[in-house]
């Protein structure tokens, strides 16, 4: 018998060594896998459910903070020396009106 013939005969005979578990495994194993997969899915969905609103809240807060700072800076600029220099001012003393302009 050649090596190849030996291997092929052995292969035919060894086929019966394939594992044959108890019949209950075919329902037990899929059920366990389904449960684990559902847990994975639920966890990712839960994260997504919380993550999106939290991210949106942070974005709104950041936008509000940026707008507030911009508004405050804009308000402050009205009292700066440059702003006063750019705007003309009128002062009345003893009935006479004096104008201070650029």
């Amino acid at each position, binding site marked *: 018998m050649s090596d190849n013939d030996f291997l092929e005969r052995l292969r035919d005979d060894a086929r019966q*060594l394939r*594992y044959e578990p108890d019949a209950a495994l*075919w329902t037990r194993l*899929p059920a366990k896998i*389904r449960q684990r997969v559902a847990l*994975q899915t639920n966890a990712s969905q839960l994260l997504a459910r919380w993550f999106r609103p939290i991210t949106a809240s942070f974005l709104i807060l950041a936008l509000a903070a940026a707008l507030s700072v911009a508004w405050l800076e804009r308000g402050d600029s009205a009292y700066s020396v440059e702003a006063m220099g750019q705007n003309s001012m009128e002062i009345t003393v003893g009935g006479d009106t004096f104008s201070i302009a650029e």
Partner: protein
Amino acid sequence: MFAMQRESDRTATRNETDPIEQRAIAAVKGGNAGSYDYLVSKYMKRVVSIAWGIVRNAHDAEDLAQEAFVKAFQTIARFKPGEPFGPWIYRIVTNLALDLMKHRQRFRHEEITDAYPAARGDRADLPAATNELARRIDGAIESLPEMQRLVARLYLVEHFEHAEIASMTRLSEGTVRSHLSLARAKLRQRLADLYGGTHE
């Protein structure tokens, strides 16, 4: 519910493209976890058998199969479209089983040699209908060194081809052939009374 699908050896072994399988993979990637049932029912028998062939323990084989399917589900986004699912899940379960064996061997400080292969489970889980011939073959395969044993079992018992075994074990096809050749010589010697010697 999982449809109990007793796949033929051919469909579960060969890398044929199954349109239902491809649709199921696409659906799972799209967030439909229920479509994973099809993949589990199609491949679980083979996955459990591969795991058992390595660890030789029914409980461990079931746990490994479960871990393999969960791991495949977690990483399915990386799975290439159009590829068959079988080789991928077989590779995952083979690696998990080999990792488990290595972990146990390290823990026990056992040394694997030709004379003392790793102690792995027992023969209590062999199919009930196994006859004396099969038991002799099983014993001869079990007496081989680790990688020869793995390759021999995948080729002889599970009927995978060289390229499939190479993909599952991350060995080159040449190395697989080499392991199988060495295994064949030892098996022929150990089973000479059943199959005849080399010079017959």
